[in-house]
């Protein structure tokens, strides 16, 4: 049963994508670690971390694609799940600082000492333990998605309304995390990390492993997402997107279907956030900004929603473009991004990958039709010929 589930996932394109991702995941760190810095092949650590960041964004876009591309839920709050995963990781990294902080308090992170807190708040307990923190990376975003989705999907909030309240959700979290008394470092967030599992987060080796982990998690999530959308469940999902009431009248519990997908997607976003934080070295409330979540939607739309691979490509392309533009022509970046939004919705509604796929499909259909025509045409001509005689 499970093997069937996984086996179905490994359709040609997915295998190829996973292969490429893993190759990158091994090759880039190898070029970083094994070549001398002056070699032409050498990849500097900052470039590797930059690409690692893109891979995390790609995973976030993949997560969004699962709910938006397949289930029709346009979440404008996926940045919140990403940020929560990031905070869970950040809390672990904070606890690892131990007494190396500015104030040297072995238990309390610096910002708590600064705020004159005397003891660790209860929700920080356990985060010094890696396994617990990693479980929380999944559980916290998953739980938020579950509670939110439980209410929203039962009362059949959908379409635009759902988008707007997901946006309100991330906005409320943004405001909340800005508050110092929330206990998450206020608007400075969590930073100044020292090490992860005993390895320095600054070290090239650690960075290389983090990069590889990003590629690996992205591959695994891609396989999982592919398995989901290629199962019967995935077909139901598309049904929900295209004709929700039909699915209901066929006897499916649409709210459970949406809830499951939403939670899985939120967890993927959480993983992305958790891998993101040690590579960029900071997590702050800015990650909750509604604009961030909307940007994820663009990556997905550019790459092609409902294609799984598209969002990955979209995230990497758009963020690559962003890094380039903000470095070279900072003025132009917002024009470019805004223009991209408009252009994609107007001229490329299926996104890059979707358009290519569509082209292939159309060619195939054309060929098939031509062949059928030829076959029928053959018999017809025979028939005509006979009739003529």
């Amino acid at each position, binding site marked *: 049963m499970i093997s069937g589930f996984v086996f179905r996932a490994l359709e040609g394109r997915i295998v190829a994508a996973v292969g490429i991702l893993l190759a990158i995941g091994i090759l880039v760190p190898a070029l970083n670690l094994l070549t001398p810095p002056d070699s032409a092949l050498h990849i500097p650590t900052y470039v590797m971390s930059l690409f690692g960041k893109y891979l995390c964004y790609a995973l976030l876009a993949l997560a969004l694609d699962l709910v938006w591309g397949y289930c029709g839920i346009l979440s404008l709050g996926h940045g919140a799940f990403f940020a929560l995963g990031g905070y869970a990781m950040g809390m672990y990294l904070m606890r690892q600082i131990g007494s190396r902080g500015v104030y040297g308090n072995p238990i309390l992170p610096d910002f708590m000492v600064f705020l004159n807190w005397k003891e660790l708040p209860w929700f920080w307990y356990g985060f010094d333990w890696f396994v617990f923190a990693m479980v929380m990376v999944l559980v916290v975003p998953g739980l938020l998605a579950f509670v939110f989705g439980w209410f929203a999907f039962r009362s059949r909030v959908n379409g635009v309304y759902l988008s707007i309240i997901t946006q309100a959700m991330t906005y409320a979290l943004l405001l909340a995390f800005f508050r110092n008394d929330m206990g998450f470092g206020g608007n400075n967030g969590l930073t100044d990390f020292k090490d992860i599992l005993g390895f320095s987060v600054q070290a090239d080796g650690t960075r290389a492993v983090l990069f590889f982990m990003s590629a690996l998690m992205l591959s695994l999530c891609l396989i999982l997402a592919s398995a989901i959308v290629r199962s019967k469940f995935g077909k139901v999902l598309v049904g929900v997107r295209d004709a929700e009431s*039909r699915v209901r009248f*066929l006897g499916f519990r649409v709210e459970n279907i949406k809830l499951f997908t939403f939670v899985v997607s939120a967890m993927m976003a959480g993983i992305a956030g958790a891998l993101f934080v040690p590579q960029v070295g900071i997590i702050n409330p800015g990650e909750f900004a509604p604009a961030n979540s909307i940007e994820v939607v663009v990556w997905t739309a550019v790459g092609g929603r409902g294609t799984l691979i598209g969002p990955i490509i979209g995230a990497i392309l758009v963020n690559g473009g962003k890094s380039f533009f903000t470095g070279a022509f900072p003025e132009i970046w917002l024009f470019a991004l805004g223009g991209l939004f408009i252009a994609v919705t107007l001229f490329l509604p299926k996104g890059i990958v979707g358009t290519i796929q569509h082209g292939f499909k159309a060619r195939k259909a054309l060929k098939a039709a031509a062949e059928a025509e030829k076959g029928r045409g053959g018999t017809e001509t025979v028939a005509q010929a006979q009739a003529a005689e």
Partner: protein
Amino acid sequence: MNTISETRQKSLLYLENVSVSFDGFKALNSLSFVVEPGELRAIIGPNGAGKTTMMDIITGKTRPDTGTVLFEDTIDLTRQDEADIAQLGIGRKFQKPTVFESHTVWDNLELALNRSRGVFATLFYTLSPEDKARIEEILETIRMIHRKDEYAANLSHGQKQWLEIGMLLAQEPKLLLVDEPVAGMTDAETAETAVLLKEIAKTRSVVVVEHDMGFIRELGVKVTCLAEGSVLAEGSIDFVSNDPKVIENYLGR
């Protein structure tokens, strides 16, 4: 009183005094209506008579303001939602054909198949030989075996209607509600649909809403005429179509 309790004993679907209003507009007005097991019933009535609204009530899409809706004499449908009602065995074809356009004909039927519909059951579902045979059987019935790999979006209007009926068959309902199945069909297709519905009705109850009198005649079954949210007349097609109230309200126009 006596007769009502008798009908209650053996009815498949039982509506009594059902009323519903939208912003003060009474779409259904003390509607009472009974379907026996195995019955094929036709419903006619002018636009806005409340035919579709009645189906909405039966399938849990709309809640009645007052009245009783029972399935198999015991199950109160007003307390169940669409998915529950579908699982109880009530299938519905919408007035506007609704199929999964981005799925193939085959996938449409596979989704409709009456199998466990839970999240994990569908995640790990694999097509068994019986299911395959069942889908092929339905494809035969709706005459689409050669189009099974076609995307539903590419089907004609009439073919979508048929596919939707096929999906209902796959659902194996005890009661089938069919809203205007022959709208937009050619005469030949209409005749074929009548045959198909009669065929289907051999093994289950069917309620058909139609405006096409020729089609109703072809079905040759008991007819209920609704107007302004309640039953105007009920009986054979000849009886109903000669009823002066029906002529005035519906046919005469």
